[in-house]
């Protein structure tokens, strides 16, 4: 079964993975209660960082990272964070519930850097990016002063070469000896684990001259999860939308959005185009849903149930261009779903392609109130009108 979201993991999980590869990270413990936070802070002694573990970025700005000078302070911050809805620039207004904290030993930070690896699709190679502007959003640096981002493209056949590491290290004003191991290990993890992003921001140099990953973010290529069972097990379902999890179990590609027009489409491109045309007609799509190229009656039925389980949905648009997928299969699935769930919502159906006549026949002989549309433009107008 495919998972369709980009798989993310928590900071503490990313740091464990990187530490296993030999990347130096601060000493830290995962805690789930305020009392544990007190104990860990007491054991570490001195200043600690209390960090909320949620999948969204921008935690610092949202108040999810606190510096505690005493165990009492650590306990107080932990009590306030645990169970709260943390709102950051990336969570949306509803925020994310904080269930887990990472408590880390404080460091004597001298300088902060950025280090990240992504795939540069325009040249077909991974690219290692580094900047002396650490701790801030790299997108901002890229916009403001692109010359401050150093880049090295990696030939996947030969890997990350020592001369490239030297270029980056000297460019950052570091001695290559300080960062060589860390860079080699980070790239090794990126390649071994099929990451789509491995980012250390900030990478810090301490007064003592050590270089460590103060934060870590790793995303994985879903298509490669089949060969990384241990990584797949790090998936935290509580961070994901329940309807999306349900959809992924049926092999459906569903993403929940904010509008009120539910849509079911075959093919990702056509599904995006359908969302676009709903918007152009003055409506708002409630979701992205691609039932795929060869869905069965059962899958169409499940897809429809997931659509209407979203309470915001006021009308449904089914847009199918049957190629491999036959229109009669879609029609049968929809009729079954409506019978099963007893949906009272208006359903606009646009069918085209293979077995379109049989499909239309099934819909009309069902004696249900389907609104039949002719072409995408007509379908969008009708469904937006129906959603009110």
């Amino acid at each position, binding site marked *: 079964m495919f998972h369709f979201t980009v798989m993310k993991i928590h900071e503490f999980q990313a740091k464990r993975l990187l530490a296993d590869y030999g990347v130096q990270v601060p000493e830290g413990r995962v805690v789930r209660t305020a009392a544990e936070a007190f104990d860990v802070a007491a054991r570490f002694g001195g200043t600690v960082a209390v960090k909320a573990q949620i999948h969204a970025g921008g935690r610092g700005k949202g108040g999810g990272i606190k510096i505690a000078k005493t165990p009492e302070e650590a306990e107080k911050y932990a009590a306030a964070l645990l169970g709260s809805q943390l709102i950051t620039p990336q969570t949306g207004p509803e925020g994310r519930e904080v269930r887990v904290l990472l408590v880390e030993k404080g460091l004597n930070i001298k300088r902060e850097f950025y280090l990240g690896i992504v795939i540069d*699709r325009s040249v077909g190679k991974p690219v290692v990016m580094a900047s002396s502007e650490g701790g801030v959003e790299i997108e901002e640096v890229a916009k403001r002063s692109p010359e401050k981002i150093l880049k090295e493209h990696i030939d996947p056949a030969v890997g990350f070469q020592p001369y490239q590491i030297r270029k980056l290290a000297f460019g950052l004003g570091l001695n290559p000896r300080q960062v060589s191991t860390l860079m080699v290990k980070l790239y090794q993890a990126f390649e071994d684990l099929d990451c789509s992003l491995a980012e250390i921001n900030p990478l810090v140099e301490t007064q003592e001259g050590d270089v460590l990953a103060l934060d870590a973010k790793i995303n994985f290529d879903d298509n490669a999860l089949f*060969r990384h069972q241990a990584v797949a097990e790090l998936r935290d379902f509580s961070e994901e939308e329940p309807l999306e999890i349900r959809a992924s179990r049926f092999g459906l590609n569903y993403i929940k959005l904010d509008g009120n027009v539910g849509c079911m489409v075959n093919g990702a*491109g*056509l599904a*995006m185009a*359908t969302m676009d045309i709903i918007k152009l007609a003055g409506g708002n799509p409630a979701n992205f849903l691609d039932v795929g190229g060869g869905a069965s009656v059962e899958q169409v039925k499940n897809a429809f149930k997931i659509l209407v389980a979203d309470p915001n949905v006021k009308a449904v648009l089914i847009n199918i261009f049957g*190629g491999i997928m036959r229109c009669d299969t879609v029609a049968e699935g929809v009729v079954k779903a409506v019978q099963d769930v007893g949906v009272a919502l208006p359903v606009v159906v646009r069918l085209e*392609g293979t077995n379109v006549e049989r499909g239309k026949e099934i819909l009309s002989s069902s004696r249900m109130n389907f609104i039949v549309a002719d072409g995408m433009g007509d379908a969008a107008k009708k469904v937006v009108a129906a959603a009110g």
Partner: protein
Amino acid sequence: MAIWVDRETRLLVQGITGREGTFHTGLCREYGTNVVAGVTPGKGGMVHDGIPVYNTVAEAVKQEGANTSVIFVPPPFAADAVLESVDAGVPLIVCITEGIPVFDMLKVWNSMQGKGSRLIGPNCPGIISPGKCKIGIMPGHVHLEGRVGVISRSGTLTYEAVGQLTSREIGQSTCIGIGGDPIIGTGFIDALAAFEKDEETDAVVMIGEIGGSAEEEAAEYIQSSFSKPVVGFIAGQTAPPGRRMGHAGAIISQGKGTAAEKMAKMRECGIHVIESPADIGSAIESVL
């Protein structure tokens, strides 16, 4: 004339004995494609639906003179299948498989450079020159032989575009689904360059998606080196950043690859950009 596939195409199917391979090989042959061989390791010597099966691509090429390969093997083995065809010197390789790990494709892509094979895909519907040759999973019957080229990152949205053309009796010279993955073999620019040279193509429909910068690069190419009218559409105008919209390549990451950016660039470069996917047919009609 059309581009890349025509009546001279001699097709070999990698993964011919699998469910998908069997089904789509049948439909391609029904359409008139000359399927000369299949490859399934370990099943060499058998005859599958009347087509000889070989253990290796090299053998199939040598025995049957195949000049094009189509790949229907599952994602964990697809990169190897592409490399096997490259090694056997197959000039055109069409990879339908969806879900190949990006790192596998990185290695394939880099290793193929300078070797003389063209890869279309992966994660694509394939390529069709209507009335001549169909390679892939697109429904043959919505196409009509004619003089408009179609290049698209998506599958069913391509059928939608083609359907709009055919219903206006505007035929197509060749329709290429270049694929929805971040790393693909043939891009917009390669296809545009071939359409520029093709005397039987008068205009081109270019269908892009959010994510990456392929459309922007193609727009610049069109401005500098493409003489025929182009109608363009970008899917995902309403897609939120950071969410992957089905295709592995369709993701707005780090604020880059939005539909608005792409459409602005395309307009600036002289492409007839339409906002509604329902207007593809009428837009082509107006530029012809």
